[in-house]
């Protein structure tokens, strides 16, 4: 039971009977939660205790990406990242693995996952290049940001009930560098991949005729979502920019009070006090801007990329349906090779059904993830802003207190004189 049913690397090429079994079972499931339960049962088998309350929190594979290192060869310079895996899954021979991977390897993995599961939603990778310029490729911040994004990518795959069982994923996590290189060379050759691409293009040009309503609704949603999330990304980046400019001016403001205190006698205390307060507020402002840049901006940006992934998923689903529709028409019109055509058409029909249910199942999952991620990012931002204002308020209140105390001291002096 374990390992065979949802083994993704093998799945698309299953015989009709197997596909029919699976698709039948999957179509019965309405709840996303049930899908999760189903797949976990399939993969874990009886080796583990199954606690119903923690079903969705049950995590048996932990992946981290860290420790970027640069490598210089005669031909090129590139960065590798350490990928650490800890797992109790039985498909893995060991419980811990440490390998080094470069960006190209991640790209390969994503491609393989999408190839095997064209209608599952794979988390996006950070962009290949920074738009501003190639020279900045190896800048510290860029590497840190990319490392974090790669970490999130792998964790999303590891958390996915179907994708995490992929053989390609396992190889990615466990193989040594040379092992991975030779593994990559297997699989469909260049010509057959090209053939696939040509077919895909032909299908997309042809267009799909009877798209089910729910996928049209999905498409409309994705377009609107993409639009909104891009706007939010831009707005947030603008806020960061404005906040940095505000900080720049504020940094010039405080020192003037200090300069002034040099000309005064009685006012030295309050002037230096105000200068100090402004300086403290500058530090808090800087921290607040960093938080925005480190948390909210990357999250929003990732969902901009996500929405592009979603569009691609919907296109691929359409293509699968278009291919079936083409064959179906051929079946209706051609008189020869009816048996072979019928077999082919049935296969394609099953493929469509499987693709649709995979997408439907994953759609809810994706929405929950999106909701969780964005909610958490906005809550963190709001909390940081609260912290920022609370700290600044405390700074100014301390100053006020010192002035009131001085004031009452003076009043006492006046009384006694």
């Amino acid at each position, binding site marked *: 039971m374990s390992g065979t049913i949802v083994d993704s690397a093998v799945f698309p090429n299953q015989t009709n009977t197997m596909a029919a079994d699976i698709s039948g079972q999957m179509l019965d499931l309405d709840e996303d939660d049930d899908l999760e339960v189903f797949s976990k049962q399939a993969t874990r088998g009886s080796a583990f205790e199954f606690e119903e309350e923690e079903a969705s929190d049950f995590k048996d594979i932990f992946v981290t990406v860290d420790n970027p290192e640069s490598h210089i060869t005669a031909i090129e310079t590139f960065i590798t990242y350490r990928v650490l895996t800890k797992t109790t899954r039985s498909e893995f021979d060991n419980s811990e693995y440490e390998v080094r991977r470069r960006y190209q390897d991640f790209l390969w993995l994503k491609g393989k996952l999408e190839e095997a599961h064209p209608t599952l939603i794979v988390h996006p990778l950070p962009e290949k290049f920074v738009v501003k310029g190639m020279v900045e490729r190896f800048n510290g911040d860029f590497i840190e940001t990319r490392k974090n994004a790669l970490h999130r990518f792998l964790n999303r795959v590891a958390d996915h009930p179907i994708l995490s069982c992929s053989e390609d994923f396992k190889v990615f996590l466990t193989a040594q560098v040379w092992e991975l290189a030779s593994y990559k060379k297997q699989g469909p050759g260049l010509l057959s991949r090209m053939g696939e691409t040509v077919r895909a293009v032909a299908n997309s040009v042809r267009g799909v005729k009877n798209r089910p309503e729910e996928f049209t609704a999905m498409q409309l949603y994705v377009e609107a979502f993409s639009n909104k*999330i891009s706007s939010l990304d831009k707005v947030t980046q603008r806020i960061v920019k404005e906040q940095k400019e505000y900080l720049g001016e504020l940094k*010039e403001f405080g020192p003037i009070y200090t300069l002034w205190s040099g000309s005064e006698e009685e006012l030295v205390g309050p002037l230096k006090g105000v200068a100090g307060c402004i300086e403290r507020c500058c530090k808090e402002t800087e921290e607040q801007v960093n938080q925005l840049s480190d948390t909210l901006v990357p999250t929003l940006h990732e969902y901009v990329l996500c929405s592009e992934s979603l569009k691609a998923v919907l296109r691929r689903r359409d293509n699968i349906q278009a291919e079936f529709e083409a064959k179906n028409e051929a079946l209706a019109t051609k008189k020869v090779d009816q048996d072979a055509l019928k077999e082919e058409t049935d296969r394609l029909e099953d493929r469509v059904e499987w693709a649709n249910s995979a997408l439907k199942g994953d759609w809810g999952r994706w929405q929950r993830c999106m909701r969780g991620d964005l909610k958490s990012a906005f809550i963190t931002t709001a909390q940081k802003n609260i912290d920022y204002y609370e700290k600044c308020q405390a700074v100014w209140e301390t100053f006020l207190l010192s002035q009131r105390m001085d004031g009452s001291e003076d009043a006492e002096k006046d009384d006694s004189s």
Partner: protein
Amino acid sequence: TCIGRESNPGQLLGSSTLLRRLEISVAEAEKRTGKNTVNMQETFTVYLIETRPIDAITDGHNPAPDSLWRRYSEFELLRNYLLVTYPFIVVPPLPEKRAEFVWHKLSADNLDPDFVERRRVGLENFLLRVASHSVLSNDKILYHFLTEEHEWKEVVYETGFQAKADSRIKALSATFRVKNPDKRFTEMRHYSDELQSITSQLLRVRARVADRLYGVYKVHGNYGRVFSEWSAIEKEMGDGLQSAGHHMDAYAASVDDILEEEEHYADQLKEYLFYAEALRAVCRKHELIQYELETASSDLVSKKHQREELATGMVRTFSFKGMTNKLFGQEAPEQREARLGLLEEQIVEGEETVKEKTSECQEYVKDAWVDIQRFKEQKDRDLREALVSYAVMQISMCKKGIQVWTNAKECFQKM
């Protein structure tokens, strides 16, 4: 001589200030149109000055105030009169003529209602300061300004104060050429330069900070719009997003009040920017009087030397007249007598002048130093209070921010 002292003999008896006897306010502002000096139509603003004798306000009595309208130029005229008449006083400044140190959203237009309102407050502040000053408040022209609408200008001009004004060049030149000014005044003049420079720097940077702060807050308004649009396509997240959006709009809008309050702080700084100029004027006047004294003294000395030369025939100093006398023969005894006589007269006059100037200088130093001390105490009090009020404003801004983001966080949690 100081005109002020002559026309206010009552001052020596320690009179109480005008403000203790009269309630003064600048209650309103209105736009008017009229013909100006070159007979062209212009729009200008007039301000309503209301006054009420304090002893008329008793229990049960609440009489209507007397009032009259004045425009800014009349305030300027009053102040110029006070500057010339009381050069030893640090005369309170008027609010600025034109809006300066403006951050971009604020209007630089003199007819803008916010500007007019801030000017009204500034003019009232000016009158209250003048009317509570122990010397200035007793001035008759001031009282006339507050109580008689018509023909006040004529009365001011009749005092002939404009003729007594020192030329700027004279004052400036004295600053450079005076030899023994009172060190305290020289230091005070340096301080006034520093104060002016610092406050103008501060005002400039503050305006830039305000500009940037405005930008940060207003961009958040975009969150409001996008959250609202996004909420339309979401099911579970819709309500949370929608209400969070409203709070973002509120956040963006809150900056307007914040910055309006801060304008008051800027106005307090501006007042002392202009006060610095008034302080410098008092120090310069001292240098001028001192310079005049030094000039009178050295004139006297040189006249005495000339007398000595004539009397004894000894040439103390080189002069062409002396040389020509030697070359072409001396003058006749009668001519010499005449010249000697003239010199004696001039010396007597000169000694009077020096005596007058010396006493003028001493009195000026005494009176001016008293007012400078008063000014210093007032400045320390006012600026400390301004700094405290700035802190209060910052705290208020922080509290608003906490409120908004706490509300937003609650909405996000409902997403």
